[in-house]
Each structure stands twice: as C-alpha cells, then as structure tokens.
C-alpha cells in the first residue's frame, strides 16, 4: 500500500459558491489549501466576505476533466445547424396566442 508523501505545496482547489438558496453553485475562483476543510475555511474568508454566498463547494482542481479548446468545433458546431431545436423555428398562427 502506498501513501502519499507529505504535501510540499498546498494543492489547488476550485471554489463554487451558491449565492442564494434556490440558485446553482457557480464557479468563482481557486485557492491553495492543505485539505478540504481548510479549503472551505479559506473560501469562506476569500469569497464570501460580503454575504456573497449561502453554500460553498470546493473541488481539487486536478479532478476536473475539461474539454479541449481544440475540439471546440468538433464538440459544439454540430448543434449550430439544428435550428429546429429552438421554439422560434416553428410558425404558429397568431390566433393561437402564447404557446
């Protein structure tokens, strides 16, 4: 069984804050901390000094998998010619009213 050596530098954490009950957590920045409890404490001090949040998530940055900017066209362009996925694609007579 291998154990990790003592951390030299504190690892990087991404911080997500829920600004208000009922809203989603939103990414707001990153910070270095020794562990998750420490990261939460620091996130509170750094990102919620003026009641900007009611809940915080911290995630080790290295655990985030991200799409490659070079694949942007491959990933997202196919959606651009599928305009029939939008409600405005369809003509509905005025007398139907709001639909």
């Amino acid at each position: 069984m291998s154990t990790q050596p003592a951390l030299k530098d504190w690892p990087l954490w991404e911080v997500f804050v829920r600004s208000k009950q009922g809203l989603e957590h939103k990414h707001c920045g990153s910070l270095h901390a020794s562990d998750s409890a420490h990261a939460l404490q620091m996130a509170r001090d750094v990102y919620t000094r003026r009641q900007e949040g009611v809940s915080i998530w911290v995630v080790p940055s290295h655990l985030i998998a991200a799409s490659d900017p070079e694949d942007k066209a491959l990933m997202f362009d196919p959606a651009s010619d599928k305009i029939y996925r939008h409600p405005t694609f369809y003509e509905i007579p005025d007398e139907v009213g709001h639909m």
Partner: protein
Amino acid sequence: MYTQSFSVPDDTAGNTSGPKGVPAAASAAEAELQAAFDARIDQDGRIEPRDWMPAAYRKTLVRQISQHAHSEIVGMLPEGNWISRAPSLKRKAILIAKVQDEGGHGLYLYSAAETLGTSRAEMLEGLHSGKAKYSSIFNYPTLNWADMGVIGWLVDGAAIMNQIPLCRCSYGPYARAMVRVCKEESFHQRQGYEALLVLMQGTQAQREMVQDAVNRYWWKCLAMFGPPDADSPNSQQGMRWGIKRFTNDDLRQKFIDATVPQARVLGVTLPDPELKWNEERGHYDHGPIDWDEFWQVVNGHGPMNKERLATRVKAHEQGAWVREAAAAHAAKQQQRQLKEAA
C-alpha cells in the same frame, strides 16, 4: 487594490513562458494559430487559459498580473501599520476590513496568474528576492492618520481608474478577477474620503494634517499611471492585445479631472500651481511629473523599499510553521482514512 498602469520589467526575465501542455508548433501551424488569436482579439473576444496564445502575450500577462498581485500584498503593509493606532473602534474595523480585502485581491490575482502556468511559489520567490516589482506608491511611509484617508481617496481612486478598464481585458481570468476587485474597491475609496471629511471638520491641526498628506501623495499618485505615452513603448502592444484599453496619459487625465472637484468639496488644495482648467481641451492641465524620482523608487531606492520587502519576507518566514503544520495535518488525516479503508 492597486496597480501601476504599466508593467515595468522585472529585474531578470527568469520566467520562461509556456505551460508543459503546449507543444512546439511547426511555423505554418503557428501562423494559423496566431491568425486565429489575432482575429479573436479583433472581435473583442476573450482568451481562456487553455487556448493557444503567443508566448509574448503569456509572458506579459504573467508579469503584469503578478506585479499587480504583489502590489496588493505589499499594499497591506502601510495600512496594516495603522490598525493598532486607528482613532476609534469603527475606523479600526474599517481598516481591518480593507486590509483583508487587499489580501483577497492578491489571492484573486495570483490565481489568475497561475492559470498561465506559473506557480504561486515562483511568483512569491520573485517578490521576496526583490526581482519582481510592485507598485512604487508603497515605498513611501505613512506618517499620520490622514495618510490612511488619502490612500483610500487618491491611491485607491487612481487604482480604480486603472482597474475598471481591466475588467474588459482580453484574458478571461484576469478580467474576472478585476470585476470582483472593482466591486470591492469602491468601499476603499469612499471610506478614505469620508475619513478625510471628518478630519476636515475637526481642529486646524487636523485640517493641516490632511493637507500635508495630500501634498505628499498627490504627485506620487499621478506617477502611478506610468510614464507618459511617448516613453511607454509597451503600451501600444498592450493595447493591441486588448490588455490595456486606455493609454497612461488618458487614464491620468481622467483621474485628475475626477479628483479636482472632490478636493474642492473636501476643502484641500492640490499641490500643483500649474493645475488649471483648459477650456479648449475640456480637461485640467497639470505641471510636470518628476519621473527621475519615480524610476529611482521603482529601481529600489525609495524611502521604504527595503523595509517593505523585509517585512514581507519576515511574515512569510514566520508563517512557515503554519503552512507546514497544515500540510502535516492533512497528510495525517489522509493516512488515517487510508488505514480505515484498508
């Protein structure tokens, strides 16, 4: 929050740019990437950390953002000096909140710089060794309580002028950090101005204290915007890259035009006999700035350079045991979890 509106060369260009993930592109491929980058900048688009960017763009940003971050951190020192001597509990609480903000601003900026592939440790090493620059305004002493008000009003005021356009900087993480910073900055300027208003309603000695602080800081604040456009060869490139939106002289002019009426309301004079409204230009004219002094201070010969750096290094060294203890605690917790899982 503070920055010089230009980034001066650090003492050695020690930072090699480019994160490990970016392969050395063949020149044709590189030209294509460069063209796509230029097109995005022309459309006022944003560059994000993993996007391709020219090495010089990355290097300029690392230097500018880290200098900006260092300025926040060193900027805590002149004000931190006055926390124990603030004239009331209210002013003490305000000053603590402001200094805490500056620390936070430093962190937002270090984080933004780290997205460019430079580690926090490298940046701190640059600051502590004296290689990296920070805003020269902090290399002057804060002699009396009115200095706290003047720093809020004028120094933060100058910084705000500079930082608002940076909210539209082409590099996404820097721009987002600046949005957060600017939201908090208005408190800094207003608390300073209000502290001065209170002093101005006090005794003659208190009014003189305010005037003295204004006299000492005015010219240094004008210099914060950086050398005149004619002597600022990097400005053009910064503007081309969408990092800079206004020239040093334009920002300085905006600051002067905004500040003159504020000084009038406060009841102080600004120490420049040539300061007068120019009807034709629609701006205030001002006298010459002492750039020799400015460069002396940038190059390490200001009244407080040594002391500021020494204080910063001491704080870092004395905090070493806290960093080590936190890391040791985290490692122990991790081992305990592994044992429980086994």
